[in-house]
């Protein structure tokens, strides 16, 4: 919000005035109201412990604001990236041109667990493997946005984006009278359109039947699954509701079997089809992969799409953009050292005190080392890990993430934030006019993950 010590960026002026006139009593009340609201609508984490109360993610009342022009650039950049990632998937599961051109070494693709050999030679509808992509962005200077991570499998968080806006509009209607905030509530409609535009070849239904496949109520994103299916008006199914017969997929309804055309799956590859992936799995729909490959159903995202958001592949995304789209990347990657390469590993080991080291397969803010913030013993521990398994790690500089004003004990303080906007690719490519802003609630913290004390904010994109 601040340009320098005391100068407020223009588009935050309204918010600053609004903050000034709120007493701490009002702030307390509104915080409690938000918490009650989130509990009531059930936007909570389930825990495995049934007697423990469900947790809610801390919600910060101060919105994060993007100007129209700021957002335009992000929009172009994210869509560009999402297109390149899909082109990459289509390529590596077919001709492998990017490997032949010596841009990405084949070992780092084909040896990955997230690479799915059974997808070889198969092309999903419209060649879209990953129709819903969440790109994690950070800002380090006035116009310096970097991509921290791509999420091509089943990015979550969009329900927070929508519910955060709902609660803000409900609690502070005046804010929305005085600011021109682009609405986001058409996201579920656009998501459904995207899914319907990806019907499989054997689908004759002009309005394809879509379902959302969830692992069930114990999954931490369960609220989001039910929220999205509700908003889209499609069935939320578990794998036991589905079965395969004669090259088609059906769901069990009170009328008898009903054919399903598109599965928006929110379960991992491993649990899709016990015949194809994990024979030990008790969840999954036996035979669904066969139906998929013969054009009886579409699975979104495609099995094996996860290779595109692998941290080792991430390094090559700017090259992908040039290779597939013939364009210059609009959004840069964070500088990243690939520990697999001997020289880069040496650099990382020498400068580990300054760097953030991440596990290639890690997520949720776990399994990482923040050099400048870590004790000598944990640094030594990571040095050993790096030397024994360099392939398993990448390193990045510690980014000075931008601060966003955040209410901490009724005082406005700066806290670090990141941003995940959601990109949809079907018949057309589009970006949500907003996203999920995550905020590191602890002073000085760099970790915004909700599993580690992160909170969320409403994210505004101002209309032109």
């Amino acid at each position, binding site marked *: 919000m601040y340009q320098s010590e005391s100068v407020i960026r223009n588009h935050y002026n309204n918010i600053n005035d609004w903050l000034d006139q709120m007493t701490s009593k009002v702030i307390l009340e509104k915080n409690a109201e938000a918490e009650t609201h989130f509990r009531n609508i*059930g936007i909570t984490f389930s825990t495995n412990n049934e007697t423990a109360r469900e947790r809610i993610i801390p919600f910060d009342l101060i919105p994060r604001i993007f100007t129209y022009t700021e957002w335009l650039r992000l929009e172009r950049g994210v869509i560009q990236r999402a297109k390149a990632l899909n082109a990459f998937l289509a390529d590596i599961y077919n001709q492998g041109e990017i490997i032949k051109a010596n841009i990405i070494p084949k070992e780092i693709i084909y040896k990955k667990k997230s690479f799915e050999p059974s997808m070889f030679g198969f092309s999903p509808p419209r060649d879209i493997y990953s129709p819903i992509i969440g790109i994690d962005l950070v800002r380090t200077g006035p116009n310096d946005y970097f991509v921290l991570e791509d999420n091509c499998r089943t990015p979550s968080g969009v329900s927070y984006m929508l519910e955060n806006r709902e609660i803000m509009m409900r609690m502070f209607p005046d804010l929305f009278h005085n600011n021109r905030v682009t609405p986001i509530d058409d996201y579920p409609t656009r998501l459904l359109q995207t899914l319907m535009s990806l019907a499989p070849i054997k689908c004759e239904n002009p309005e394809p039947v879509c379902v959302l496949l969830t692992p069930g109520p114990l999954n931490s994103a369960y609220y989001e699954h039910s929220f999205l299916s509700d908003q889209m008006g499609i069935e939320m199914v*578990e794998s036991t509701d589905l079965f395969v017969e004669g090259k088609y997929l059906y769901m069990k309804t009170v*009328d008898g079997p009903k054919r399903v055309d598109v599965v928006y799956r929110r379960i991992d590859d491993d649990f899709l089809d016990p015949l194809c992936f994990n024979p030990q799995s008790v969840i999954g729909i036996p035979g669904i992969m066969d139906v998929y490959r013969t054009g009886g159903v579409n699975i979104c995202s495609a099995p094996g799409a996860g290779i595109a958001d692998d941290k080792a592949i991430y390094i090559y995304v700017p090259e992908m953009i040039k290779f597939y789209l013939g364009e210059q990347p609009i959004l840069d990657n964070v500088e990243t050292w690939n520990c697999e390469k001997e020289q880069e590993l040496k650099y990382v080991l020498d400068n580990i005190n300054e760097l953030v080291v991440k596990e290639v397969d890690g997520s949720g803010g776990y399994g990482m080392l923040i050099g400048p913030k870590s004790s000598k013993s944990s640094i030594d521990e990571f040095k050993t890990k790096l030397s024994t398994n360099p392939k398993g790690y990448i390193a990045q500089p510690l980014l000075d993430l931008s601060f966003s004003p955040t209410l901490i004990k009724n005082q406005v303080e700066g806290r670090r934030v990141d941003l995940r906007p959601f990109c949809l690719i079907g018949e057309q490519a589009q970006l949500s006019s907003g996203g999920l802003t995550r905020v590191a609630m602890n002073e000085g913290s760099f970790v915004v993950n909700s599993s580690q004390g992160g909170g969320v904010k409403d994210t505004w994109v101002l209309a032109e």
Partner: protein
Amino acid sequence: MLSRTAEYLYWISRYMERAETTARLLDVGYRMSLFPNPSGYNNEWESVLSAAGAIEGYKNKYDTIEQKNVEDYLFFDESNPSSVYNCILNARNNALVVRTSFTPESWLAINKTYQEILNLKEQKFTKSDLPNLTEWTIEQVNLFRGSLSSLLRNDGYNFLFLGLFIERADNSARLLDVKYFVLLPKPQYVGGNIDNMQWSILLRSLSSFRAFRWAYDGNITATKIADFLVLNNNCPRSLSFCIQNIVKHLTNLRCSPEKVGRIYNNLKDLNTKIQEEKIETIVEYGLHQFVTQFIRKISSVDNEIHKEFFN
């Protein structure tokens, strides 16, 4: 509609209805505890427990029947499947899975109830206040039922109401069965202290205490009460009202007419009989036998609904 969704909807309203029945029973027990004990009826809590179908579970846990323990067992106890707490917990867990099949208001009604009962449970040792708890429960259930009025009139709606009336039919019949002796024909009018107390228990636990006075003129007789609770179609808890509504929501289902037909065939004799029967005949034949048969029939209809629609 998914078979699983239909099943969950059906059970949500069963659980909510059961929560109300349990709360009403507790309320009756509480009232009774405020009156001086007439000899022969000195343990009204025991009959509350048996009406709630919880007497066995309770006796496994406690040696003596005491108000405090009965209250806890019927309201909060996690080991009692019909405790108000468990009913609400189960309804809420089911609602979580099928919230897409009803309105946000219905979800809110259930989820708020759940959030509040968690708070009540935390405070129960500092603040046991049975009348407030039962009143609260009835209020919450009414909130839920009210929210259903804005639902789409589709099969989901009918499954919700099928569950509600199957549960209510069963609950009403069980209450009648526990208290049927009150309604046995006697030469004189009902009027002794003990009888007064007994029939008021029965009517109160079926939320029909005042309604009865409005429905029947003149003297209160056992036959009139029996008629009210078994055959009167104006009484929303009578066996006949429940059957009528089960038939209505069953035949309103638009899915699978053959399945509906099979269940209806099993039900239609009972429906015809109950609509045409005279209470005197039933009482003469044996109210207890009648009610026992009724309970058996409802349970077989419930089994059929599960078999036809939820598998």
